[in-house]
Each structure stands twice: as C-alpha cells, then as structure tokens.
C-alpha cells in the first residue's frame, strides 16, 4: 500500500463516518431514536387516590419473589423518611406534604418512551419494548452504572452487595406477567385503583377526563405525558388549595409536582437526544482511531526505511566511486612508473582507507554511545 492509496481509503472512511454521525443527529432532531409504539401500555398513577397503604410494595415483592424486607409492609412508619428504590425493593411509596396535607406517591421505573438509560448504555443492555416496558438484559452489562447517572428519575439501583456478578436492578413493568396477560403486581394489589393500567393513549384520555370533571381537585398537568420525551407511567397530582382559589391568575403550572419530588424541568424531548449524537460517534472513534494512528505510524516508518535505503545507496555509490578512482590511479601508476610502484601505491592507499575506516568506526561508535 502506498501513501496515496492509504489516504484515499482514510478519506472515504471519514466521509462514511461523518454521514453516519449526521444520520444520528438528524434522528435526534425530528423523530424518536426509539420508535414510538402506538399501542404500548402504561400506568396512570393518581396521587389523589393513593392512601399510602404500601399494598403495591407488597404486591411487587410477592410477584417478583423478592426477599422479605426488615420491616413488614403494614409498618407505615417507614414513610416518615424519604426512601429510594433498592435491588430488593423495586418500588417505594413516599409521603410528601402539599399545603399541610399528606400526599403519597409511588416511585418506580417510569419506562420512558425513549429511555435515557438506554442512551447511556454502550453495551446496549436496555431496550424499549413494543409493550411499553424498558427491559434490562444483564448478559452484556459491564457494571459501569452509566445508566444510573443518566436516569432523570434516579431509578436503576445496583447490587453493591454482590462482589462477583453485580447487576443493575429496576422495575420491569412485570414484563413477564404482561406477556401472560396479567396485570403488574402493584396494579393488581392496589385497593384504590390509584394505579390504572391501560394503553398509554387511552390513559391520557382518562387523565384528561378526570382533570376536566374535577378542575378543583387535580393539577391541570399530566406528568409524564411529555416530560423527558414521554413516559409510560404518568402521574396526576392534587391541586394545592391556594392555587385552586387563584386558579385564573396563577403563573407557574405544576408546582405541585415539585412538591411531590418530580422534576418539572426535564423538558419535553428525550434525554438521549442530548447524547445520542456524541455517543453515536464513539463506535466510529473506536473503529477508526487505530486505523488513523496506525496509518500515521506506518507512513513515518516507511519514510524512515526509504531514507535508510537512499543513504545506503549513496554510500555504496561513493565507495564504488572511490574504488574505481583508486583502480584508475593504480593502473596509471603501473603504466607510468611500473608494477612495483603500483603495488606500493596500492598498499599505501589500502592502509589509508583502513585507518580512515577505523577512525570513522571509532567516532561512529562514540556517536552511538552518546
């Protein structure tokens, strides 16, 4: 391969890579990187109905065969402090205060339409399934926990206790039960229907109807309809009394969600859009940087080899020239002064050459030492 051919290959590879990256970027701007599944399922969590009984936690524990917790599920004192999801508690109910009244909210994986965890995972462990669930496959997981950092809802938890094969753990939407035609464990065990299961599109209509029928009961916002690009699990919040009075003059919508520990500043585009472009370039970098730097190394090596060869040729030519000149000189001496003088001159010249070569070798040796 010569230099020209190598550069040609490198150039075309660069164009291909640029095209690939721009395609990802384009997808981020207009369409979902994950397809939007029309008939996907979702769950509507109506916090005005939730009474904080923790039956959902118990149901989840039971259907997923999780280990028994330290405190029994009917111990409601655990709600006095905020809890997070753990590898053995895939959903937790927390108590919040809205104008002095307790409001309960269940936390679990929101099963985003375009999940941020999947966007951050370079091992492609997370998949958005057509039924709405975001599934995790541990077979390729390297345990980098980028997903835990990427998730805007702080959902994935990590089996820190397991030294040898720790996995990331989160709510599965009871995906296996869905496939059997059953309801998720938490929904089945809710005594208040604070969790409504259905097609996501239907649930949005249900939520809108509830807000319309009870404008003084609900905040006029469906959390998760658009937040973080839309989520399968959506939340309705009660309206704060002071807002109910000044309904028409209020400025900030959805401050109730902030009180419920839900971030209302996630934007309405998927988190992944911020990173898909940059992260999409990573495979390109991985693929082409060895070629690029390997090529540069090869070029410099080759140039060195050529230089060496050229130098050697010059040296050889010079030597031949010297030998030829000496031959010519010896022949001339033999012609003019006879063979004896030629032999003496020949001897003298050979000696001189030898001395010089020795001196050269000596200084060359010194040079190498230095």
């Amino acid at each position: 391969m010569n230099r020209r051919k190598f550069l040609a290959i490198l150039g075309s590879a660069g164009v291909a890579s640029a095209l690939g990256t721009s395609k990802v970027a384009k997808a981020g701007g207009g369409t979902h990187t994950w397809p939007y599944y029309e008939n996907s399922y979702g769950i509507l969590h109506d916090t005005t109905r939730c009474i904080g009984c923790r039956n959902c936690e118990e149901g989840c524990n039971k259907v997923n065969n999780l280990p028994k917790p330290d405190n029994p599920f009917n111990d409601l004192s655990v709600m006095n402090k905020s809890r997070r999801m753990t590898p053995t508690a895939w959903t937790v109910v927390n108590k919040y205060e809205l104008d002095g009244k307790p409001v309960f909210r269940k936390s679990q994986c929101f099963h985003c339409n375009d999940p941020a965890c999947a966007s951050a995972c370079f091992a492609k462990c997370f998949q958005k399934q057509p039924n709405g669930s975001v599934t995790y496959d541990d077979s390729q997981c390297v345990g980098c926990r980028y997903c835990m950092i990427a998730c805007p809802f702080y959902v994935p938890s990590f089996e820190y206790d397991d030294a040898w094969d720790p996995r990331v753990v989160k709510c599965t939407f009871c995906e296996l039960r869905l496939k059997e035609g059953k309801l998720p464990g938490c929904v089945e065990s809710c005594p208040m229907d604070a969790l409504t299961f259905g097609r996501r599109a239907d649930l949005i209509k249900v939520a809108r109807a509830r807000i319309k029928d009870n404008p003084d009961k609900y905040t006029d916002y469906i959390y998760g309809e658009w937040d973080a690009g839309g989520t399968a699990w959506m939340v309705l919040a009660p309206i704060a009394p002071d807002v109910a009075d000044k309904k028409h003059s209020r400025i900030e919508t959805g401050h109730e969600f902030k009180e419920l520990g839900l971030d209302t500043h996630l934007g309405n585009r998927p988190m992944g859009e911020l990173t898909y472009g940059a992260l999409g370039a990573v495979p390109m970098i991985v693929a082409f940087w060895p070629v690029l730097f390997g090529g540069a190394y090869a070029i410099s090596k080759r140039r060195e080899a050529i230089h060496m060869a050229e130098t050697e040729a010059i040296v050889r030519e010079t030597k031949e020239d010297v030998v030829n000149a000496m031959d010519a000189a010896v022949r001339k001496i033999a012609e003019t002064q006879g063979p004896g003088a030629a032999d003496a001159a020949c001897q003298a010249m050979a000696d001189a050459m030898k001395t010089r070569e020795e001196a050269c070798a000596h200084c060359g040796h010194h040079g190498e030492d230095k």
Partner: protein
Amino acid sequence: MRNGTTLLLLAAIAVAGVAYLTLWEPSLAPAAPALTSVSDAPSAMVIFPVGEKPNYEGVGMKPVVFNHLVHKNRVENCESCHHTGETVACTTCHTVEGNVKGKFVTLNQAMHTLRILPQADRNTPQSCVSCHTKQLQKPKCAGCHSIVKPTRSEIYCNVCHSVTGLTKADIVDGIAGKLSDERKAELAANTLKARKNPVQLQPTDGPYKVMIDDIADKYKANMFAHRRHVNSLMGRIKDNALASAFHNQPTTLCSTCHHNRLLASASPKCGSCHSQRANPDPATPARPQLKAAYHLQCMGCHKGMNVARPLNISCVTCHKESEGQSVARAAEKLGEK
C-alpha cells in the same frame, strides 16, 4: 286497676301535646313574612331573556322565576349580586346579545358562568350557577358532590327555567321588556304556588343492612349499615332549600352510590359492572375494579364530609380479619419470637 291513673295521665299529656302541635302550626306560618325585605324589591320576580334585536316570535329560553326574598337573606349584602352597587335588574346591562353597558357579558354568561375573573379594584361578580356550585363545597354536600357533579340535563335546567301559566303574548312582551309589572308579579306568584319539591325516597325504602361479601378473602365480609348512612345524609340536608329544589328526582340522593343507571327501588349489584379484575380490560381502562369501586365511594364521601373515622389505612375498622389471616399473622409472630 292500679296503673289506670298513670295511663290516663300519659294519654292526656299525649293528646294535649298533639293538639298543641297541630293547633299552633298554622299560627307559626305567618312568622315567615318577618323576612320581608327592607327595600322595595319584590319577593319573587320573573327574569325574561331580554334582547335588543326585535323578536316578534318570542323565541328564547324559558324565563326564570327568581325568589329574591329567599336569596337576599342568604348573601352577604346586595353587592354580592348587584356587583355594580346599583340595585337594578340584571337585564338592564346583560342582555341576550350582550352590549357595551354590560361589557358584552351576555345574559347567559352572567347567569351561568363558572369562570369569573377576580376583580382587583372592584366587586367580583358571581353568577347563579357559580354561587350554587360553591355551596356544594359545604361538608354536608361535599360527600356526594366530590364524587358526582350535577348533570346539566333538561331536568336540571327546568328547576329554574319554568313559569306556570305563561302565554305566548307574555313571552313576546317580556323579551321586549314591555310586560307590565302586575302581570309579572302574577306569573311569579302562580309559579311559586305551583312549585313543589319532589318527594324523595325515604331511608326506610331501602334495606336496613347490606352484606358486602363479594371479595371476602383476606378480610371477612362487611355488614354495611345502609339505612344509617342514608339517614345521616338525608338528615343533614333536610332543611336545605337548595338541595330540596335540585334533588329533583325521588332517587337523586341514591344516585351517588347507585350511579349510571335508571334508578328504581331494586338496584343491581356493584359487581355487575365492576369486575374483580385480575386481567387488564382494554375496553374500559377507567372503570375501577370492584374493590377499588367500593373504596373510592366510601373513602371519597368520608373525605369530602371530613369524617375523621375510620382512617383510610386502618382496614380492620371496617373489615374483620378473616381466620386464615389472623392465624397466619399469629404464626408469623411466633416465628419471630
């Protein structure tokens, strides 16, 4: 007869008591006019849909007979309704089409709107419906009315929009604003005389207790004190004129719990529609499962009426634990020890 005297005495007292009540009742009735207004406002009046455009056919919504006396005594002051401070008829400014005097707030809006911007510099007006809707937030009403909202049906409109003995000539004149005050007073008096509140079903028409045992597994069946609950609800609104007027069907009060059906004395079981769901029902995602249907009704009403007891999370207040459950719990406790 040793007890004869006592019996006779008791009987005499009873007769005297009955006589007192029956004889004195008519004399109590004239006490009502003590409420008469200080102002010259009539006690009842007819509000016609006064329009600016010529309306020779008399096409329009049925006029309303408004009992000024009753309403006057229930609001803070005249400005609550006469928001400009001038005690003039609503139709002076608010006409069917709306005009510049009424800031283009039409008569329909002035009477019915629920969306009223609070006024910073002057009196915030209110409409008939906005004020009536506000009444539903009273604890005695809020139980049912946090679950059901009044249906805006023809029957609902008729409560106000009905005038007895109205002729076509009256309507044409009334809309044009030319009907004589005498005729108006006559119409109003006739309507009020003819107006009768519907007779409600009585607590005794329903069962005394109802056994709710469809789902009993973890907990025992619940014996629901049906009559006690109906009694309590009816007792609270017994003297409420607004409720009496708008609960316009014999079964209106029943229809909070026994909803979405033509009411008769026999009601279907809740489980007829609310299934004990184990599988998702894509057709009706919003319909609560049976257990939730019960809980939403009971807890929704109790919450609305500020009934402190029972606590939402205290299951055993309403449901006795089933044997299996208590045995399991006892075993668990033993195991812990």
